[in-house]
């Protein structure tokens, strides 16, 4: 096992790199389809990292978590979105966002640097080979929050929430790999229900309001009243 450690560590580094890169991809893409694709990639990187930690720590429980995550995030959630979100929404190419793409990426870069500083007070990873997961996961979390704030479309906002959750898990798996299995199982199922509920909500929004550009939703404000 001992001689495997460096190899596992570099493989995990690769997964973390892919995770961070797809986090940037989520912000850079202009297409709805691209958003879903980058989310898939990010989830696959997460699953890879969970699997490597499961082998390297070693925590056999985590293999079940990895399999469950693999089934739910890259496969079931995009399928649910396909099923419940109207086709028109997916065909949209130009997603509205507050900043243009170069400045979005610049802000993302600053957030990533901030994540590295914020990670210092956080406890180091319990699994030494996954030390890199702490800052990268935190960066993923911040990028998700930024995506939620900057994107004005329903589906990318939803994917922003999932990106935050992915970031939390990537950090979390490294910090506390022996979390009770019941809890670990609950997290992906929770995401599944969220995807279902918000997917349906997106469809209703589309029917009722005629757009899924949630940035345009401003009927409810203090000043709107007479």
């Amino acid at each position, binding site marked *: 096992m001992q001689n495997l450690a460096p190899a596992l560590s570099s493989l995990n580094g690769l997964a973390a790199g892919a995770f961070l890169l797809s986090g940037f991809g989520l912000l850079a893409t202009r297409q709805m389809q691209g958003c879903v694709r980058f989310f898939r990639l990010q989830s696959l990187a997460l699953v890879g990292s969970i699997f490597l930690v499961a082998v390297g720590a070693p925590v056999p429980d985590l293999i079940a978590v990895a399999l469950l995550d693999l089934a739910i995030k890259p496969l079931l959630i995009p399928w649910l979105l396909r099923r419940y979100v109207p086709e028109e929404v997916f065909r949209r190419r130009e997603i509205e966002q507050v900043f243009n793409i170069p400045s979005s990426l610049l802000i993302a870069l600053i957030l990533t640097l901030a994540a590295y500083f914020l990670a210092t007070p956080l406890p180091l990873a319990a699994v030494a080979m996954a030390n890199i997961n702490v800052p990268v996961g935190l960066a993923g979390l911040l990028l998700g929050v930024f995506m939620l704030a900057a994107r004005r479309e329903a589906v990318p906002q939803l994917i922003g929430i999932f990106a*935050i959750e992915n970031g939390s898990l990537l950090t979390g798996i490294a910090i506390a790999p022996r979390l009770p299995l019941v809890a670990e199982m609950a997290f992906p199922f929770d995401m599944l229900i969220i995807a279902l509920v918000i997917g349906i909500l997106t469809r209703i929004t589309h029917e009722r309001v005629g757009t899924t550009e949630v940035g345009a939703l401003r009927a409810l404000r203090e000043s709107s009243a007479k």
Partner: protein
Amino acid sequence: MNLFLILVLPLVAALISWLPLGRRTAPIVTLLACIVVLVLAGEAALKVAAGARVSAVSEWVELDGLGALILGLVAIVATAAALFSWGYVAREEDAGHLRRYYANYNLFVSSMLAVPMLVEPALVWTAVELTTIFGIYLVAFDNTAEAVEAAWKYSVLTIMGGAIALLGFIVLYRATRFGLAPFSWSGLITLAPRVPPDVLESSFLLILVGFGAKVGLVPLHTWLPDAHSQAPTPVCALLSGIKTTLVLYVILRLLPILNATGRINIELWAVVIGLISVGIAAFLILQVTDYKRLFAFSTVEHMGIILTAAGLGGTAAHYGAVYQILNHSLTKSFCFFATGAVLLAVDTRQIADVRGLIRTSPIAGAALLFGGIAIAGAPPLAVFLSEFSIFRSGIAGQHYITTGLLAAFVVVAFFGILHHLNRMVFGEASPAATDSLPVRLPRSCVLTLILAGAPIIILGVYMPPPLHRLLQMAAEGITR
């Protein structure tokens, strides 16, 4: 065993409500399930107050003083809201829509009942997430463009908060590496002195930011007035009366853990964030134009008051905090029932369109006025007593600036609420209202108003000894 029954009953009721068994079945089953849960929860709370250990699965499903108080409040508000729903939601014509309402209502109640009973933090997180998710359908129930918008803002901001808090809970789990105690609220307190403060502090901040969004603490409060004004009234009573408190309860659970380290000054965080929430909400109350939003901002204010009281430290202030939790839940749910009655009577949410309510619909007008006076904190009603006990403990603890600011904001909110309600309730009846015939309120709504109003008056003059003991135990639960 009874604790499991409390969890399972609403789930069974949800299933029965969802099946197409006629228009009357779902409301009856829901109400019955809520009443049985209320009896069971009351019995469990009395046992806890008498000093007995109430536990279903040790270190997983248990009830202590603080948990019992919150559990009782969830059961009370859920029962009252189920009774109010009876007449209020009956206007809905689509039977399927109605069934889905009651099914979601029961799921929502079940997940809320789970939060105070679970003592394993990761499961608590899951239960809190579920309350948020089941709430979405209820907020969007009216299915208008505004309701959908409110549901969207509600779900995005609060689920984002949940995802951030998740990391906080995982970091919290790291504490179990420093000892052998189980991962539960009480286990963490025994572990805390041996855990590096950084771990606990970063976990607390992540949870405060994440769950703060669900509580509606400023600056992540923007979803709250939208959701609490657009949702159907019984749901508003649940959301404002107990759901926000429930999430705040989870944050309060962390205080004794951090205090046990003896090295972290989290009181400052609680006081600063609490005071900002109270202050901003108090001034926002002055300029509202929608009376349901008025009470929604009042919820933000009260959440701030409770957090500030918890941050003042010491048993007296913590007693004030849990006392305020009790009174706020009872009073705020009553206020929303009153707004529901007003909405049935005048069919507008605008304060400016409602005049002379006491003439056109005496019951709705009187209830609204009573609710407003009670929630603003006028003596001798319940909220006055708890706010007064917070101020007194603040002065006794020599927190003059904090107490002074808190009192000033509470006074601003007091005048804000009464200014708006005064214009709605008294004066000449508006022409629009006099044209239409006086509306007869559904009997279940009137009954709810009477039943929900009674404890506010009674608690103002009399505190039953078991409840007093329960509050003391709950206060110790935060202090320890």
